[in-house]
Each structure stands twice: as C-alpha cells, then as structure tokens.
C-alpha cells in the first residue's frame, strides 16, 4: 500500500530480483505475504484435493439431500446429496487451471503483438495498435458472450473467448516498454553491430519487459477467475457435474431460500482467491515498478 512513496528506477527484472532491497520490500508488504500464503495453500488444496475432500465431487447420495452444514458435511449437501465441501475443494483445480491458462494465452498474444508494434513501429504499429483499440472497445465479458454464442458453451470455449478478448492491456504495456527500451544504448549498440531483429528482441528487450508483464499477469488472474466463473454462473461455461465454483453457485441459485449453503461457500472461495491474487499483485507492483502498470 505504500506504492506512491516509491521511486521508479529503470533497473531490469533480474537485477531487481537479485537485489536484497526489493526482496526486503516485498517481505515488509504484509498484504502481499498474506496473499502469497493463501495462493500457496490453494495450490496445495488443488494438488491434494483427493486427500482433502471426504467425498468424490460427483458422488450422489439421495439419502442426504440438501443437508445444512454439519460435521459430516462442512459446507452441507446439494440437491443430489453431493458434499459441497468436496465440490469446492475439487473446484480449486478448475479455477487455478482455467485462470492460468487464460493469462498465459493473453501473455503470449499481448507480448508478441506489443513487441512487434513497439519495435517495428510505422505501419506495423498503426495496424496492431488499431486492432488493440478495437478489441479494447468491447468490455471482455460482452465480447466473450458474443463469441460463445458463435462457438458454443463449455469451459474450453470460455477460456478461448476470454483470452482473445482481454489481452489488450498486455499489448499496451509491452509496446510502451519496448518504445522506451529502443532508446537505450545497449539496444542501439546491438543494432549498430548488426544483430538481427529477432536476436535484439529476444536478448535485450524481452528480459526487460518481463517485470511489468509479470505484475500485470498477477493482477489479471482475478479478472480471469471472475469472468470465467461469471460465465459458468450464467450456464455458458463448465457444464454439470463439473465442480466449477461458478457452476455450483448457479446450481444453488434456485435453492437460495431453503439451502443457502450451496451458493454461499463457492462464492467465498472465489472471493478469497481473487483477494489473494490482488494483494500479491499489489505487492509485486510496489516492488517492481509502480508506473509501469495500466491503471
């Protein structure tokens, strides 16, 4: 939270990571540490889901339908008698996998286009930046919904739809960073001694755009989780019996009056996850470069 006190300095990602000062600064950032701890816990839960969950996520038991939370069923049971706790535990796998997949695709698309636009400039830049502005003109959820209406529902299609509708921030951040890197002596020196474009991009420019993109990626994960679960909630994402958090929420909606627990707990899981990534992202931004990220 002390972002604004920090001066930005043009160090590279690696030298910053190596510097003790950055590390100490990160360690002092308590919310970021809490966020990191929750994320590690979440990853462990996802890995050890079969050990942690007392039941299979799709194990139906018609003798225990819509039971309130108890010692046997920590989060209660749903309309098929499935254990909501087990479903939420297994759901962490989907949430983490989907969010990382979305962000990796966005990173690859955005960084590639942004590097090309920034490095080559001219017509290439005009074309790519124009395209970026166009995609940017749609709120991602709306364009993703439009795409899903065309390519159909399902978790894979949701990942594709969200990734190709929200890479624009990566492209913009990368382009801006590349433009400033182009002016630096070591890049000019590379051009002067006749290195190829791809070599300059890979050896000098890419290492320097990692930090801002890493911060942006961390801050994008919550958006990816919120959008995918919103689409699953609407019924366009993960299909039953998938224990996707958004899908569980959707199933619990009709029983809100009699079985509040079905929709309540997966929502808390989503909130905790996005909160953790936002805290971590804030901390990383403070450590690396407060000025480099899109507001």
């Amino acid at each position: 939270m002390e972002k604004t006190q920090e001066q930005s300095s043009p160090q590279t990602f690696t030298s910053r990571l190596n510097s003790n000062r950055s590390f100490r600064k990160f360690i002092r950032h308590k919310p970021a540490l809490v966020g990191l701890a929750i994320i590690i816990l979440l990853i462990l839960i996802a890995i050890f889901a079969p050990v942690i969950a007392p039941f299979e996520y799709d194990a139906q038991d018609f003798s225990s339908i819509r039971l309130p939370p108890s010692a046997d069923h920590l989060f209660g049971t749903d309309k098929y008698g499935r254990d909501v706790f087990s479903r939420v535990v297994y759901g962490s796998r989907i949430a983490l996998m989907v969010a990382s997949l979305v962000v990796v695709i966005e990173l690859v698309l955005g960084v590639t286009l942004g590097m090309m636009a920034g490095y080559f400039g001219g017509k290439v830049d005009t074309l790519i930046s124009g395209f970026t502005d166009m995609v940017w003109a749609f709120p991602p959820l709306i364009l993703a919904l439009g795409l899903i209406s065309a390519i159909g529902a399902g978790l894979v299609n949701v990942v594709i739809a969200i990734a190709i509708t929200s890479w624009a921030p990566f492209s913009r951040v990368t382009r801006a960073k590349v433009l400033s890197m182009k002016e630096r002596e070591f890049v000019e020196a590379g051009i002067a001694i006749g290195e190829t474009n791809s070599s300059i991009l890979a050896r000098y420019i890419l290492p320097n755009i990692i930090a801002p993109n890493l911060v942006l990626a961390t801050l994008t994960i919550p958006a990816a989780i919120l959008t995918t679960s919103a689409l699953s909630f609407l019924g366009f994402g993960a299909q039953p019996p998938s224990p996707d958090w958004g899908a569980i929420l959707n199933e619990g909606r009709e029983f809100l009056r009699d079985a509040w627990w079905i929709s309540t707990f997966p929502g808390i899981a989503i909130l905790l996850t996005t909160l953790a990534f936002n805290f971590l992202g804030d901390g990383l931004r403070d450590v690396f470069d407060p000025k480099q990220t899109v507001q």
Partner: protein
Amino acid sequence: MLRYITKRLIFSIPIVLGVTLIAFLILYLTPGDPVTNLLGSRATPEARAELSEKLGLDQPVLVQYGRWLGNVLHGDLGTSILTKQPVSEAIGSRLSYTLKLTLTAFLSSVLIGIPVGIFAAAKQNTAADHISMGIAMFFYSMPDFWFGLMLILVFSLTLQWLPVSGAYGPKYLILPALALGLPKIGSIARLMRAETLEVMREEYSLTARAKGISEWLIMFKHVLRNAAIPVMVMLFLALPWLISGAVVIETIFAWPGMGQLMYQAILRKDFPVIQALLLIIAILTVLFNLLGDVVAGLLDPRIRVK
C-alpha cells in the same frame, strides 16, 4: 479545444468501423447457414429467399458487410428470431431499464468510493487508511453475481425488507443497483487515493503548505481539483463495464434491461439481437472513452496539447 475534439472524433472512426466488423463477423463464425441462424429453422422458403437477397449472400463477404452496415446505419437492426419483433424496438423498450440500473449503480459507487479514497489519502499510512483500503480491496475482489445472491439472501429472504426480483417500482431497483455498484467502490477508492497522494506531493501543494494554509483548504483548493481529472476519465470508462456487469445482475434480479435480453438471446441463439447488442455496447464504450478524453482535455489544458 475544438481541434482536440475533432482529432479525437476522427481517431474513433476506424475503431467504430472495426467494432461493427467484429459484430458482423460473429454470425459467420457460427457453424451452419447464416440464413437459418438468422431466421430460425422454421422459416418459410420465401422468407429465406428474401433474406438471402437482402443480405446479398451470393456476393463476397465484404459486400455483405457493406449491406449490413448500410442497414444498420438506416436503423434496421434486423428482426428477432424469437419474438419476430424488430430488434431496434426490443432494445429500445429495454434501454431505459438498463440506464436506470447502471446510473443508480454508478452514483452509489461514486458517492461512496470517492470520499473513501480522499479520506484514506488524507490519513495516509494510519490504521484508518489501512482499514478503508482493505475494505476497498474486498469490494474490488468481489464476484458481483455472488454479491447479488447474498444481498437477496439477507435483505429479501431473511429480513424480507426488499423484493427478490422484478421491476415494479423504486424498491425493486435498490438491490440490483447495489449488487452492480458496490463492487466498483474498490477501484474508484483506490484510484482516488493514489491520485490524491500524487498531487499532494506536487510542488504547488508543498508551496501552499509552506505558506501555512490549512491542510483541509489545500486538499479542497489544490489537491482534489487536480486529482479529479484522471478519476473523471476512469469514471467514464467504468460506465461500459457497468453495462457488461448488467448482463449478470439483470439475469439474477429478473430486471428487464438489455443485459437480460443479451442473456436470453445467447441462450436461444437469437443472432440479430446478439449482433445489435454487441454493436450498441461497443459503440457506447467508444463514445464514453471519447467523452472521458474530452472532459480531461477541458479540465486540463496540458492534455489538449499532447
């Protein structure tokens, strides 16, 4: 100033054209025959032939796009497959509901978010700052659809203060507007705080402080005026996001706006409606971006020159 506005207007033309192209292409990404997709499977051969002629399906795609754009510019957005109603009518009857909902949500988030951000900045690095920013982060991370369900659970089902869903009077507006608006408090408060802190460190703020002017006077006369500019721009950008959030919130609360129409249209593959809504929302977004830039230019002459 006029030159700046003209420049920005001209700059948005290719974006709007691109946006229409994307909305147009959605139909061609869909597997199957566009005529069937647009008319439904039970259309008569006459109707199919007529639509083929109108869309120019025997012509190259670019010509088809031209025709479609021409129809759109004449206000002809096609006919809903489901209701057989002209799409422009269907959207027109729902527009006011969505505007009512998003504007109320917008106002509630601004009226809370901005004071919280200023307060946190004024009390920088105190417990009050940390607590308000913690709350802001909480709302910032909130899944709005879950928040909506929790509001229904507490205020409608348990306390029975407010109706669960529908749109039969002002009481029906409260919960959906809060569900849509409150999660936005987070980003508004966080940005307001950051901008306020930045201006507080500017030299003119230091000068004012050196002259012995009281902190609150500095805040209102110097700091907030300048911190408001980026926040205003962000608020214009936030409106289209509220409209997109309305798809989920209107569905939960059975609020008869454009968002609910979008949801139903996708569910039943009502392509003319989907295309028209994509187009309208994207154009609104471009328009609000433009307005944001113009307002920023009006408030801050430095931006006009850039």
